[in-house]
């Protein structure tokens, strides 16, 4: 495994290995070792074309806890409208000797191009490309699910995970559906048909348009963010109607099994896809997802550039 662009890059064994490694790193850091020397002398570049404080900080922290040198390259705006091209940026980072580039970009496929067009030799980690994939988000979600629902197991056989909302535009959904199903979970995707991609019936998940009937089946429910630009795009009649049909409120949450957890990749629209009450409630593992993000990204960096993959 040289790059992490898509969850499809991972075999089931590799995915489990990342989760196992994260588990070990979690134990090491819990026992006081905040910082490990593993990536000393390595340069990790955070290349962010799209604002994302949370993901950027998470990667930065992960790399720093492994003692890597971290540079943040914030390239806002499209590469065509202003500034240098993605290619030139890649060539520049190559010349500067980057060992790994963590890229977030508006355009689907940007991470794939960085990894496979020969512009740069560094390891490429996709931190979200357009509406394509966000593999480390899926890994941290899987890690969170494992800790709560399958702590002593490697696969997710018998678990059912609901993903609710805008699947069409969600890279989080794409990566999660791929990874969770590969790990053996049953994935149920719920949302209005307008927010389902054409061909979704071929995906390794079940498609439903109604949320209420599904709730008792779910061991975990993942609420997707409704992007501001969808709210005026005729994908649904109104935010209020969306919220009524697909929002997770106290009453709906109460119909989940007792052990079920509520997840959200953030940032949340409180009152739209999830009410504040549920987001802050006892089932919510949303802040834990953030903490797990750092651990899982440490594991990915360690395995990809720390040579851990070749042990």
């Amino acid at each position, binding site marked *: 495994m040289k790059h992490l662009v898509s969850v499809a890059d991972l075999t089931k064994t590799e995915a489990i290995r990342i989760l196992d490694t994260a588990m070990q790193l979690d134990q090491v850091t819990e026992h006081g070792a905040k910082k490990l020397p593993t990536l000393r002398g390595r340069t990790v570049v955070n290349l962010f074309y799209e604002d994302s404080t949370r993901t950027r900080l998470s990667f930065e922290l992960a790399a720093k806890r492994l003692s890597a040198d971290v540079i943040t390259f914030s390239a806002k705006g499209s590469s065509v409208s202003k500034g240098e091209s993605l*290619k030139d940026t890649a060539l520049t980072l190559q010349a500067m000797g980057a060992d790994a580039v963590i890229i977030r970009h508006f355009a689907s496929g940007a991470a794939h191009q960085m990894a496979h067009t020969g512009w740069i030799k560094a390891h490429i980690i996709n931190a979200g490309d357009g509406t394509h994939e966000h593999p480390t988000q899926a890994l941290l979600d899987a890690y969170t699910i494992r800790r709560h629902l399958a702590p002593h197991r490697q696969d997710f056989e018998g678990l059912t995970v609901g993903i609710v909302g805008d699947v069409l535009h969600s890279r989080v959904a794409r990566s999660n559906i791929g990874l969770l199903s590969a790990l053996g979970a049953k994935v149920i995707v719920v949302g209005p048909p307008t927010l389902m991609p054409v061909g979704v019936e071929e995906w390794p998940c079940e498609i439903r348009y109604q949320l209420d009937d599904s709730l008792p089946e779910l061991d975990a429910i993942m609420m997707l963010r409704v992007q501001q630009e969808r709210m005026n795009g005729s994908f649904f009649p109104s935010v209020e109607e969306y919220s009524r049909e697909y929002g997770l409120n106290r009453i709906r949450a109460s119909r989940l099994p007792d052990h079920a957890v509520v997840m959200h990749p953030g940032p949340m629209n409180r009152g739209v896809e999830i009410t504040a009450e549920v987001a802050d409630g006892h089932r919510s593992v949303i802040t834990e997802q953030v903490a797990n993000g750092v651990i899982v990204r440490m594991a990915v960096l360690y395995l990809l550039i720390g040579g851990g993959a070749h042990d």
Partner: protein
Amino acid sequence: MTEPSGILIQQALLYGESQVDIRISHGVITEIGADLEPRGEEITPAHGRVALPAFVDLHTHLREPGREDAETIRTGSQAAALGGFSAVFAMANTAPVADTAGVVEQVFRLGQEAGYVDVFPIGAVTVGLAGERLAEMGAMANSAAHVRVFSDDGNCVSDPLLMRRALEYVKTFGGVIAQHAQEPRLTEGAQMNEGELSGLLGLTGWPAVAEESIIARDILLASHVKSRLHVCHVSTAGSVELIKWAKSHGINVTAEVTPHHLLLTEDLVRNYDPVYKVNPPLRTNADVMALRKGLAEGTIDIVATDHAPHPHESKDCEWNYAAFGMLGLETALGAVTLAMRDQVGWNWHTLAQRMSITPANIGQAHEHGRPLEVGEIANIVLIDPIAERIIDPNKFASISRNSPYASMSLPTVVTDLIRRGQFIVRGGELCA
């Protein structure tokens, strides 16, 4: 040294069939027969090579005026000649747009000055391709460029009333509207064919229905106002069905397909290489098969290249930001042959029909697409039917390099092009 008084092509396979000599004098075919006696002409041995009427491309982007960094009328003409074309129709989406007599006359004149192929400008349907009001089509028709084909290609004439008026108006001078069928609202931000793959790749889909709904509407409009409709770059199986239906009802519609839509599928998008980004997008294998069958049967009348040059920077970037379009002129014959040679009923006659005779008829290029017969103007292409060619875009005459066939081996090679009795291409090279 005196110039030879004509050309004697020896032992060519006429339409790939009988072996004949062809005598050309003063731009005209004067004799066809076995073992013709040389009379001081330039002798061209053509043993084993196929002689066809030179090709006509109804859909080319030459980029001049405005984007001479991508292509000029001169380089595009050279590319066309090397592809075996004696005439091309240049699309109107230049800068400035070819929406006035002045611009179309300039394009026409530059084509004549370049002197490789006849360049027939296509006029815009609406001012600035903006889809708001009709361009002065009459002025363009009556200009020295004698425009008969009108298109907003690149944009769809999506306003149904404007399309109706355009179809009606061109009846004045026997023109035709060539429609780029793309419902704009259904294709906002579209990047590739909409289907399972677009969902997986996270690229905004360009659904077949966006093409088919416009074609259906335009067929009905053409029928209603009894005018002529030409459908550009048909890309879906459903479109073929609609055109078949229209023809079976006697509606005056013609259609074109590009070489790339006959040969390539959306699977090529998987690597996000923008060289495969084109509009309409590459479709599924089922669409490709339907297009091939449609072309073989004649439901689709012609092949047109939609040759769309772009500078390297426009393709060496993120998929979403890359320009739509691919080169086509220098690879058209090879790509079409590779796609079509196993189709039932496909032979050199069909190829000549689809790439020369019918496109010349649709575009009213009366000197082109004529049968290879005594008394006809000598616009002839000679083809080596056995040779294969590894495509190297760096060797193209075109300024641009955005060919989807780079490193592919394509069958057949255009060896010679004769236009009005003069060699334009000889032995695979442009004549000076």
